[in-house]
């Protein structure tokens, strides 16, 4: 056994050419010396022995020669690598386990990093994009509202911290003409400084002139690269052509570059840009108590965010003094553009990144543990090498080479997994995660993976290397290694305890999210999404200039759709669930009117007759709207039970009927509440509940009626398949007017699934991490327990001879495993309690300290740990006594 080891070690040490040369050189010297002694009359044996004596420490000489080479590390690297490779092949099973473990750990980290890099770290594609900020206004009830246009003008005139400021307003409409199909587009009306503020150059043409950015200016338009390709086939002569937007002729003056990315290319209102200044005559642009525009600004070079905030706050304060009626209590906020853009993803990504770090740490601990276990079986080999003159540093280096080789293989596998994962992530990530389309495995990500791999290799290699190379020579040579394993065992147990703690923390976080998701799925949306198809209809402004033109069309279309076979009911609304929403200020029953920005807000919808039936919204008291609730009839409204609870507390629902509510801006007529319906989750299942008010569309304030009526949503309930319904409706609309575009066609069920996409996405990732961590923990516990059983075979044999029953042995061993787990679980639970607040923002309907989650995770781990300890324990209890005692 020893000789075989010796041979292997020697072979390994002498495997390179340099080593062979060194051996030959010294061997020649020995041979010549031996011959000299032979000639002096010694016997061959004597001569050989004398020559060796004379030489004095062959191996030391070799080491000294190796040391003489300055680049010993580099020279020895191929040798170390080859040796390491051989060791890894020999322990193939172990290598496989380690490789997979590391591959998963490094892969998860690298994939996650690719997401974080794309979403949070990569700068936006504008020059000095860290100086771009979004400015908003802030009141007590609306901390994050858009800006009043006159306020923007004052800010821009008086600021000292910003070099550019531009206002933007989302607009939508229909592009037509040019011999191409009419198309629904979304874009922005922007002041002329907009592109300069961004620092974005156009691909073709120019931006707006000062004259064009004024009321009555020439109608001009900048189009996106996508629209340019789609409608003009990328023809440079598109610039200068006139196209019809909302029925009015606009001259195309510029085309954006393909790389233009303002709030995401795929998911954005970036089709077209028109001058905002032409809208200045609109009343809402002149009022300080109406806040329609978003303000984009570029901070001056060298100005910090703090200074920009101070500057803007001072401006808001002076405006509050000058216009106390509208601006009293109105502050202002400055948010970096990137943060405004990806803000709500930061928390989820941080949690996921943290989870992937935990997973990698657990993987490292596991590998360190496996290497420690193997280390004890390599003690003899190491001792032999030390005896042959190898220095300790040399051995540590050799062992680290081995672990780095392991981590490199794991890292390569990890990069491969990350490559697959990144592709999947970029594809299947929900739209809600902006910038996800940019997820790629570029050099930054590969560099991150490589760094992770190296750090990992050192992290899990250092403890085993130091421990193994520190063997006491005589001890190992004398005892066959058993007596010296105590220190290693304690270290391994400590590692398992730490591992369990990390795993518990990770599983608790996962568990909390699982419970949140479960709560969310169980959440009743308040409507019945089955068999409901929704879509949006847009009437081009130019052809539908007045109410009188719009209303009959809506009426006629509704009748035609209702006549399609299979459709049970159809209803128009200003916004279907999971689509648009409109929050309006109102005066609650029995209260005095308040200033508009202080009045409470309600989700407000203007709906046609039968809307609540179409969506399956339950009626709790009173009635729903009928065709009789038309213009000129008594003004009515329907509210939800949330409204009743908040603004008419303590009343029976029946007593809510007959109360009056007044919508601000809506002609401000008092409306009699004629029905109370169930609260619906309009924007998403997890939204904060805001009270809801329904108004008959026919009774909307006339100027609003025109705006709302040109962009109505259609909701249809039917017993037939969604595709059939949609194609039937399309055909009906086309027959009526081929230039009316339909958009946002979806079923409510699909929209509901989509609205939970981001959450589900996070959850699936965390479940994968949690599951992998649990698996690694099982491997870790099993490894340590079965190793300790193998070390204690003799002791167990003695115990059983002295009368211990197999059950006692099992209990003893499983108990030991459980003790480690309970220690770790306690640590993990405590850290989870401390970390809980970090993920609170991701939870829904469950507290961060949810006892059920904590208890289930701890129970799960205990069971798993017991199972992982039970197998080796059974083996120990089934020992062949005679063999165990004989074993030396």
């Amino acid at each position: 056994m020893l000789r075989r080891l010796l041979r292997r070690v020697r072979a390994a040490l002498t495997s390179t050419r340099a080593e062979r040369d060194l051996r030959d050189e010294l061997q020649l010297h020995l041979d010549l010396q031996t011959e000299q002694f032979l000639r002096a009359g010694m016997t061959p044996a004597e001569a050989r022995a004398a020559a060796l004596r004379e030489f004095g420490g062959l191996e030391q000489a070799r080491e000294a020669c190796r040391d003489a080479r300055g680049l010993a590390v580099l020279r020895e690297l191929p040798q170390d690598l080859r040796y390491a490779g051989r060791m890894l092949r020999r322990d193939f099973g172990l290598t496989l386990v380690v490789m997979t473990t590391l591959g998963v750990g490094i892969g998860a980290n690298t994939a996650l990093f690719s997401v974080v890099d794309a979403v949070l770290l990569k700068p936006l594609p504008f020059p000095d994009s860290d100086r771009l900020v979004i400015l908003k206004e802030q009141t007590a009830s609306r901390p994050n509202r858009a800006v009043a246009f006159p306020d923007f003008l004052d800010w821009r005139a008086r600021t000292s911290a910003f070099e550019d400021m531009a206002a933007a307003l989302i607009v939508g409409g229909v592009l037509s003409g040019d011999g191409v199909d009419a198309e629904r587009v979304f874009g922005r009306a922007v002041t002329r400084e907009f592109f300069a503020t961004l620092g974005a150059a156009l691909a073709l043409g120019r931006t707006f002139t000062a004259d064009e950015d004024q009321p009555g200016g020439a109608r001009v338009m900048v189009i996106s690269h996508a629209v340019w390709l789609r409608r003009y086939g990328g023809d440079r002569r598109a610039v200068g052509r006139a196209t019809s937007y909302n029925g009015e002729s606009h001259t195309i003056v510029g085309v954006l570059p393909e790389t233009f990315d303002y709030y995401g290319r795929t998911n954005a209102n970036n089709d077209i840009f028109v001058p905002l200044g032409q809208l200045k005559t609109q009343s809402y642009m002149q009022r300080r108590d109406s806040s329609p525009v978003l303000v984009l600004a570029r901070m001056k070079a060298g100005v910090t965010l703090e200074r920009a905030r101070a500057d803007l706050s001072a401006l808001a304060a002076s405006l509050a003094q000058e216009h106390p009626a509208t601006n009293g209590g109105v502050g202002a906020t400055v948010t970096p553009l990137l943060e405004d853009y990806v803000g709500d993803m930061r928390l989820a990504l941080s949690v996921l990144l943290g989870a992937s770090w935990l997973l990698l740490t657990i993987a490292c601990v596991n590998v360190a543990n496996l290497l420690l276990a193997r280390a004890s079986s390599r003690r003899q080999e190491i001792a032999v090498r030390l005896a042959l003159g190898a220095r300790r540093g040399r051995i540590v280096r050799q062992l680290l080479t081995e672990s780095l080789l392991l981590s490199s293989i794991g890292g390569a596998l990890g990069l491969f997994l990350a490559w697959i994962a990144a592709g999947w992530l970029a594809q299947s990530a929900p739209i809600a995660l902006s910038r996800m389309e940019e997820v790629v495995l570029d050099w930054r990500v590969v560099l991150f993976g490589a760094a992770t791999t190296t750090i990992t290799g050192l992290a899990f290699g250092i403890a085993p290397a130091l421990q193994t190379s520190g063997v006491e020579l005589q001890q190992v040579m004398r005892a066959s290694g058993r007596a010296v394993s105590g220190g290693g065992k304690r270290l391994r147990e400590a590692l398992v305890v730490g591992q369990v703690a990390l795993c518990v923390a990770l599983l608790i976080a996962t568990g909390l999210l699982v419970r949140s998701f479960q709560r969310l799925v169980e959440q009743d949306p308040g409507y019945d999404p089955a068999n409901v198809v929704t879509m949006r209809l847009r009437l081009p402004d130019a052809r539908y200039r007045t109410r009188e033109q719009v209303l009959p069309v809506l009426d006629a279309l509704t009748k035609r759709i209702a006549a399609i076979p299979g459709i049970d009911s159809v209803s128009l609304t200003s916004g279907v669930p999971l689509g648009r929403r409109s929050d309006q200020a109102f005066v609650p029953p029995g209260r005095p009117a308040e200033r508009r920005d202080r009045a409470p807000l309600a989700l407000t919808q203007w709906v046609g007759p039968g809307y609540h039936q179409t969506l399956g919204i339950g009626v709790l008291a009173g009635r729903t709207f009928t065709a009789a609730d038309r213009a000129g009839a008594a003004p009515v409204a329907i509210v939800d039970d949330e409204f009743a609870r908040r603004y008419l507390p303590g009343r029976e629902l029946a007593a809510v009927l007959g109360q009056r509510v007044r919508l601000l801006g809506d002609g401000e007529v008092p409306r009699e509440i004629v029905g109370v319906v169930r609260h619906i989750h309009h924007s998403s299942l997890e939204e904060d509940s805001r009270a809801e008010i329904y108004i008959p569309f026919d009774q909307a304030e006339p100027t609003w009626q025109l705006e709302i009526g040109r962009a109505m949503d259609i909701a249809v309930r039917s017993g037939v398949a969604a595709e059939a319904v949609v194609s039937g409706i399309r055909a009906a609309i086309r027959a009526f007017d081929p230039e009316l575009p339909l958009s946002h066609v979806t079923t409510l069920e699909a929209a509901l699934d989509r609205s939970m996409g981001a959450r589900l996405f996070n959850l699936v990732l965390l479940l994968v991490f949690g599951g992998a961590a649990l698996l690694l923990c099982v491997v870790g516990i099993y490894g340590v327990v079965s190793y300790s059983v193998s070390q204690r075979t003799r002791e167990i044999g003695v115990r059983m001879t002295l009368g211990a029953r197999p059950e006692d042995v099992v209990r003893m061993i499983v108990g030991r495993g459980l003790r480690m787990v309970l220690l770790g679980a306690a640590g993990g639970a405590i850290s989870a309690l401390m970390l809980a607040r970090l993920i609170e923002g991701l939870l829904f309907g469950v507290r961060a300290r949810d006892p059920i989650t904590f208890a289930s995770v701890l129970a799960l781990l205990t069971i798993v740990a017991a199972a992982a300890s039970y197998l080796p324990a059974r083996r120990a209890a089934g020992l062949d006594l005679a063999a165990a005692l004989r074993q030396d």
Partner: protein
Amino acid sequence: MARKQKADLLQGTLELLVLRLLQSGALNGWDIMQRIRLVSGDVLSVTPGALYPALHRLEERGLVAAGWGASDNNRRAKFYSLTAAGRKQLQAERQTWARFTGAVEALLRDA
């Protein structure tokens, strides 16, 4: 074997001697040892454990070049020869040595 009084080499002297011995032509390790013993009349003792690392050190520093050839009795042996840099180094070290021994002798004589 009768033991004569032997002197350990001063630090750094071995390399000077090796360079000097190689001035007249390429030698292998064994030859170098024999010559040191012979020329010094068995006064200077060099062990293989010191000589070979020194040779490797010199090779690493580029003062000597090494190549494989056949020894006297036709065995594979590594021969060392002086490089240009080695020649220069030898020159410099000889002068240093002369100044050093001159100074020591002067002290021993006149102090």
